């Protein structure tokens, strides 16, 4: 890792924990985190929609000071994730069982084309880090950084309400 004063030309070594597995790679500083996840690690569940920080399709969770936070991975450099834990949509299902939030999306028909879905689910879980049992209004605000061009949001909101109740009942905060 390049610290103060250390020459940083060319590629930089990073070490990240993604969905529980450690990865070490040398990356160009300009490589965006979303491209690192998709192209270097092959985790293509995280989508690129707008590439301009507006649509939320690239949302993942990142740990900062022991707290998980939803961030837009198209608006971070991979080098900034050095030393951090990340969670992507691929890290949610366990032993072939869908995560309660994924399950709620399925049961509520909260997706049509599915392009926005991974980002929606990660933003929803991100919201629950602040408000474990959000109101409908809080859910709508919480996903205001995520665009869906198919569903009209009604079923997404229903799904998040159900998923949050299930996660609370399971005393589950993340995965």
């Amino acid at each position: 890792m390049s610290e103060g004063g250390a020459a940083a030309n060319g590629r930089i070594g990073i070490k990240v924990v993604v969905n529980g597995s450690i990865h070490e790679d040398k990356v160009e500083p300009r490589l965006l985190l979303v491209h690192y996840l998709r192209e270097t690690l092959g985790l293509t569940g995280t989508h690129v929609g707008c590439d301009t920080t507006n649509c939320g399709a690239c949302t993942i969770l990142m740990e900062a000071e022991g707290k998980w936070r939803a961030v837009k991975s198209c608006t971070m450099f991979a080098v900034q994730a050095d030393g951090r834990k990340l969670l992507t949509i691929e890290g949610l299902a366990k032993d072939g069982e869908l995560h309660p939030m994924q399950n709620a999306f399925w049961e509520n028909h909260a997706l049509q084309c599915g392009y926005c879905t991974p980002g929606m689910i990660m933003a929803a879980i991100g919201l629950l880090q602040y408000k474990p049992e959000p109101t409908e209004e809080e859910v709508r605000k919480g996903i205001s950084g995520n665009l869906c061009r198919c569903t009209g949001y009604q079923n997404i909101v229903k799904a998040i309400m159900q998923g949050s109740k299930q996660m609370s009942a399971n005393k589950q905060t993340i995965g």
Partner: protein
Amino acid sequence: MYPRKFDYYAPKTLSQALQLISEKGEDAKILAGGQSLIPMMKLRLASPAFVVDLNGIKELSYIKSEGGTMKLGSMTRHADIEHSSVVASKAPIMVEAASQIADQQVRNLGTIGGSLCHADPSADWPAVVLALDAELEAKGTVERVIRSKDFFKGPFETALSQAEILTEVRFRIPPAKSGYSYTKFERKAGDFATVGVATQLEMGEDGTVSKARIALTAAGPAPFRAEEAEKLITGQRPTAELVEKAAKAASDASDPAPDLRGSAEYKKDMARVFTKRSIRSALERAGVSI
């Protein structure tokens, strides 16, 4: 979209960061939350040769309330402010503003210092720090304190020099008998303001307004304090007519640019409407009915 190539530095201390930006000069850019800089780099509106990332500098991220003064490190995230119980009790206007900036994800990374230094003429924090009469502390070869009133110079332009880092935002905690409001008019969820008005009022024992600060964003080339409006209500017992007059004065002082959010004429009128709402809501919170 890929930015141009750059060299990346992640100093662990403020002094290392200062040394780096003074060594690298004009070609260096500071990276805070990255929520304005990275989009600009992707669009190649900014192409720094050196990027100095402040995210590893723990000493720049804090919220403290000390002897009547509130202090926030420049790397404090919008979301940290939004969810801080200290800020909620001492300076609730900041919570009200933070929760209206962009969306959850952008707030989790974007910082108050980054927003102030970026100085987007439609950003929310500038109006709020003006209404709080905040002081901004910057470090370069020397340390200096800039009054928020003197900080914003024009669109994307501040009083900082290239070799300075904004380190702290601080202000006197408003007294108990005060009212506040950050009233933002946005065209769609998460958008920048069409107009935003920050009002912080203090009430005297006799029911008159003892101090008024009214600041507008997205209403001119830089955020500004509507000083005529402030004067009109200071020392007065507030009435509906007086608030109307003050709102008109704020609108007269505005000089908005026409864009997708509306014509200059429309925005000027919205400056009046939202200043009125902002003052009314601040008065209501101060326990004054008009």
